């Protein structure tokens, strides 16, 4: 139907005066008149649709900019009162209006890096197992899906399980090595985090190891290399940026994790003395104190924590994603 109306337009357009166009339209049947109208309506809808898509895409940018601006604006009050010393101020005392984020930044870094150290051997093992040793078959498939399910379990459930099961275990472990048996603390939250972040590095590492060209591996085998030597001196060097990106993505995940950590870390604003002592992370402070913040500076200090967390995770994620995309484009 479109074809015909286009045809009419083409034949009428060369007409010298508008009258002739009208006369052509008039002489044509009623149904073709309707068709022209319908096709114009469709063109209009098409334009509206295109514009809507552009607006939606713009909305995404506005949304992210809005998040940044909101965080920045709401934290100016705290920034004005403390400046950059906020970041290394060692006391957090809402009653006296002294806000130093150092204990929480330290707590966040400790839990995240400890979790990373614990989880890396496991996630790399999964990546090598699925990428190199056994890429196909029902058992590897089952393992792959199960590992992905680890990421699907809600963090509040990890927290609850940690509180009920892991804390007593850690407590008895602490008694046996002779530190104060608190149970909750940085070590326990690192354990939980380590479980939670395994899938991120593992699935990325797996797809990276899949992409190693087989002629490289075959060349190494033909020189008499064993399986492990191929993995260590061909696969790991070739995929190192991809594996590192996976680690970065899981780090970003660990830094921002809130609920599981909040439930098992102990929530004190003191600087943690060892990895077994209770502490607090940036995310857990926000979760605990946000609704209790009764004066503007306190609230603003919490939001500044949120801003720091936002910037750090965004930078880490962007670097990780850049590394992945540069690796896959090569």
């Amino acid at each position, binding site marked *: 139907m479109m074809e015909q109306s286009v045809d009419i337009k083409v034949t009428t357009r060369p007409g010298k005066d508008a009258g002739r166009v009208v006369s052509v339209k008039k002489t044509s049947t009623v149904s073709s008149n309707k068709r022209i109208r319908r096709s114009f309506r469709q063109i209009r809808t098409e334009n509206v649709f295109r514009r809507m898509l552009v607006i939606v895409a713009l909305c*995404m940018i506005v949304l*992210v900019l809005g998040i940044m601006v909101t965080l920045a604006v709401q934290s100016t009050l705290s920034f004005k009162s403390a400046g950059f010393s906020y970041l290394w101020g060692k006391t957090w005392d809402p009653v006296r209006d002294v806000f130093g984020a150092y204990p929480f930044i330290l707590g966040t870094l400790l839990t995240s890096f400890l979790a990373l150290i614990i989880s890396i051997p496991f996630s790399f*093992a999964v990546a090598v197992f699925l990428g190199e040793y056994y890429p196909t078959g029902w058992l590897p498939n089952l393992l792959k899906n199960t590992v992905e399910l680890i990421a699907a379990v809600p963090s*509040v*459930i990890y927290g609850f399980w940690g509180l009920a099961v892991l804390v007593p275990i850690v407590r008895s472990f602490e008694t046996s090595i002779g530190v104060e048996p608190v149970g909750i603390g940085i070590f326990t939250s690192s354990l939980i985090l380590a479980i939670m972040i395994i899938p991120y590095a593992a699935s990325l590492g797996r797809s990276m190891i899949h992409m190693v060209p087989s002629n490289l591996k075959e060349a190494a085998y033909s020189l008499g290399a064993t*399986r492990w030597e191929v993995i260590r001196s061909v696969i790991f060097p070739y995929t190192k940026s991809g594996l590192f990106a996976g680690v970065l993505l899981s780090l970003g995940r660990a*830094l921002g994790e809130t609920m599981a950590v909040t439930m098992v870390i102990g929530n004190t604003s003191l600087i943690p003395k060892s990895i077994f002592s209770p502490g607090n992370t940036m995310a857990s402070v926000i979760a605990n104190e946000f*609704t209790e913040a009764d004066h503007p500076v306190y609230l603003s200090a919490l939001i500044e924590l949120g801003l720091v967390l936002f910037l750090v995770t965004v930078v880490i994620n962007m670097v990780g994603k850049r590394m992945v995309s540069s690796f896959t484009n090569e």
Partner: protein
Amino acid sequence: MANHVKYRIGKSRVFQGLTILLAFACVVPLIFILIYILQAGLTKINWQFLTNLPKPVGEKGGGIANALIGSIMIILCASVIAIPFGILCGIYLSENKKSRLAYWSRLCVDILQGVPSIVIGIVAYFWLVKPLGGFSAISGSVALAIMMLPIIIRSTEETLKLLPDSLREAAYALGMPFHRVVLKVIVPCGISGIMSGVMLAVARIAGETAPLLFTAFGNPYMSFNMMKPMQSMPLLIFNYATSPYNDWHDLAWGASCILLIWVLALNIFTKVITRKWKVQL
């Protein structure tokens, strides 16, 4: 020489064994968690548990009806906001691969994907809770919708990118206008990928607690009003799990069990569908 070769082969074997061991060790905590929560939770679940409101400490027979209803309402509302928006944005990104707007928009989606959920809670607090003058379920829905967006957009974009250009060109050659090509040809072809992205997004937000802490806030009573605080499953688990009472712990175990089954079922269902329809996510 022979000894050296034996040593190398032995080393290779040892590392292979170690890899297999570590790889399967990852699954152990998940299995422990599943077994523990099913054991602790399944015994608590009965009809009363699903239909009653939580009772004060000491009284028997409390349930989590308000949290179930609240969770479903909040998630539905979040989906209504996020799904059309996310699919449209995904369509834009896949149709205009190289435009400058698409580049920035894609960057923003990447950023949004990495934003910690608690930060989104803070932002929703300032955008909705403060102007509306109190905690409300709708603000929680918006926070969750923001978390759903990147997943939906990414899966839509990735799915539609894989469709052959000839499909699009054939539709254009028939004289179809752009919106009909997209809505009647391209989206139906990629619907399986889009739907699995949507389901993954729903599964992800079903267990999110952090953005709800300062938005939906929680409510010990039944509430159907989106403008008022509302209870939801993760919030209930968090509040009751950190309380000192055993009765409330029991409620939290039952709720965890339901939430876990719900989330895992959604995930597994999505996996089966993607396998069946051969969607790459």
